C-alpha cells in the first residue's frame, strides 16, 4: 500500500533497491507510534483524571509515576521495559513489545500532566452551574468539564504525539527494526549515509508535519470559543 504512494522513479538508487525493507521499517515505526499514542492517551487520561480528582491513595501513586518517568531518559525506560521488568516479574518479552510498553508508559506521564492542567483550566463556575441544575458530580465532569478540557489540550497533546513519533527511533537501540534501525542496517551494507539518512529524516519530517497538521485542524474545529 505504501509503495503505491511513492513516485518510485524519483527515488535514489540505494533507496529503491532497499525499498521493501525500508518500508517494513516505516510500518513498524507507524505501528509503535500508533500503539504509543492510543495506549498512552488512555493511560494518560486515567492518570490525569486521578491526579485532578485527588483520588485518595491512587493520586499520590500517580504523582510518583509521573515524576519518575519524567525524570528518566526514554532509553532507560526502554531498557527497563526490555530487561528489568521482565526479570522482576518473570516473563519473556520481545524487543517490539518492550518498546511498545515503554512508549506507552513514557508518553502517558507527559499526557497525564496535560490532561490534569487542562481539567484545572476549566472555570469552576461552570461546574457549579452544572451542579445547580441537578447534574451529579460525575455528570458535571463527563458532560461539562472533560469535553472542554480535552478541547483545550489538543495543541500540547499533539505536540506530545509528534515527540513520540520521533522518539520511536530510539527503539532501534534495543534491536527493533523500525525506520531508523532499518536504515542503519541498509547503510551498514551500502554505506551511503548522506542519501539514506536524508531520506529517513525527510520521512520523519513529512509524517510529523502531517500529524501536527491534523492537530491544528482538529483544534480549529473543536476549540472552545471565548
Amino acid at each position, binding site marked *: 500500500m505504501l509503495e503505491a504512494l511513492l513516485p518510485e522513479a524519483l527515488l535514489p538508487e540505494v533507496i529503491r533497491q532497499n525499498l521493501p525493507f525500508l518500508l517494513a521499517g516505516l510500518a513498524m515505526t507507524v505501528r509503535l507510534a500508533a500503539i504509543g499514542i492510543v495506549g498512552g492517551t488512555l493511560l494518560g487520561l486515567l492518570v490525569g483524571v486521578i491526579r485532578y480528582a485527588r483520588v485518595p491513595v491512587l493520586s499520590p501513586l500517580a504523582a510518583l509515576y509521573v515524576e519518575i518517568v519524567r525524570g528518566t531518559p526514554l532509553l532507560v525506560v526502554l531498557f527497563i521495559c526490555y530487561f528489568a521488568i521482565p526479570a522482576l516479574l518473570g516473563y519473556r518479552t520481545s524487543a517490539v513489545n518492550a518498546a511498545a510498553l515503554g512508549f506507552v508508559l513514557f508518553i502517558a506521564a507527559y499526557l497525564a500532566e496535560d490532561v490534569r492542567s487542562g481539567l484545572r483550566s476549566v*472555570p469552576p*463556575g461552570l461546574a457549579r*452551574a*452544572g*451542579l445547580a*441544575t*441537578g447534574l451529579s458530580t460525575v455528570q458535571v465532569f463527563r458532560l461539562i468539564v472533560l*469535553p472542554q478540557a480535552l478541547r483545550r489540550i489538543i495543541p500540547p497533546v499533539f505536540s506530545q504525539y509528534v515527540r513520540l513519533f520521533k522518539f520511536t527511533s530510539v527503539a532501534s537501540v534495543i534491536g527493533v527494526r523500525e525506520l531508523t534501525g532499518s536504515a542503519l542496517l541498509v547503510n551498514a551494507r551500502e554505506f551511503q549515509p548522506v542519501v539514506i539518512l536524508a531520506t529517513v529524516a525527510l520521512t520523519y519530517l513529512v509524517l510529523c508535519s502531517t500529524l501536527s497538521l491534523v492537530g491544528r485542524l482538529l483544534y480549529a474545529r473543536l476549540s472552545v*470559543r471565548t
Partner: protein
Amino acid sequence: MSETPLIVLDRVCKQYGTTPVLRDCSLTVARGEIVVVCGPSGSGKSTLIKCINGLEPYQSGSVRFDGEEVGARTTDLPRLRSRIGMVFQSFELYPHMTALRNVMLAQVHALKRPRAEARARSLDLLARVGLADRAEAYPADLSGGQQQRVAIARALALDPIAMLFDEPTSALDPEMINEVLDVMTGLARDGMTMVVVTHEMGFARKVANRVVFMDEGRIVEDRPSEAFFGAPVTERARVFLSKIIAH
C-alpha cells in the same frame, strides 16, 4: 400565611477558617414571594443564597427547602437542586455547547426527559426569553444580555419551584440590563418564588415584596419593600441606599 414557607433559613452560620461569612442568618420566603437581597460587597449575599441550593456548605443552623433539610446527609442534593433554578453573575453558560444544548443538558441528564421533548421545551423557553432565533448560536457569539437570558431559560427548563438570582445584571452593559430585568419581572408576574441578589433598586422597588439588607454577614433589615425604601431603620442601610441611589 396558611401554607408552609418554601424557604426557611434558621440561624445559619458559616466561616472560612476564622473569618465569619454568615452570622446567625434567618430568613423565610413564602411561596410566590419575591425577596431582594442587597448590601455592600463582601456582606455575604451570594453565600447566603448559595446555601439554599447547597452550593455552599454551612457550619451551623438549618436551611430547609420545601420542608427538606438541605444540609442533611440523606438529602438527595441533585434532585433538590433540580427544583431550584439558579442564575449567576457571570452567566456560566457551557462554552462548548449551543444555546439550545445549554438549555437541554440538565433536562436530558438530570430529569431524564426524552431528547425530543427536552428540545421542544428548550425552544419554547428560548422563545419566551426572546431568543428563538439564536438557538444554534454558541455563547461566545451572544451578547452578555443574551447569554444571561439563555442562562435564565436553562434554569427554567427544569420547571423549578423557586429561582435564585446571584447579581444577574452586575456583569452587563447598562443597555442590556433591562432586557434581563424584563424577563425577571415577567417571571415574578407569573408567580415564581424568587430570591434575587441585586443592586437594581428600581427592580427591587417595583417587583420585590421584601428587601433584605445584609452587612458583614448579618441580616440587618428584612422588611416589605415600600417600608424599606420609605425609611430604612438602620443607619447602615440608609448610608448604603443614599450611596447607590445618588448616582
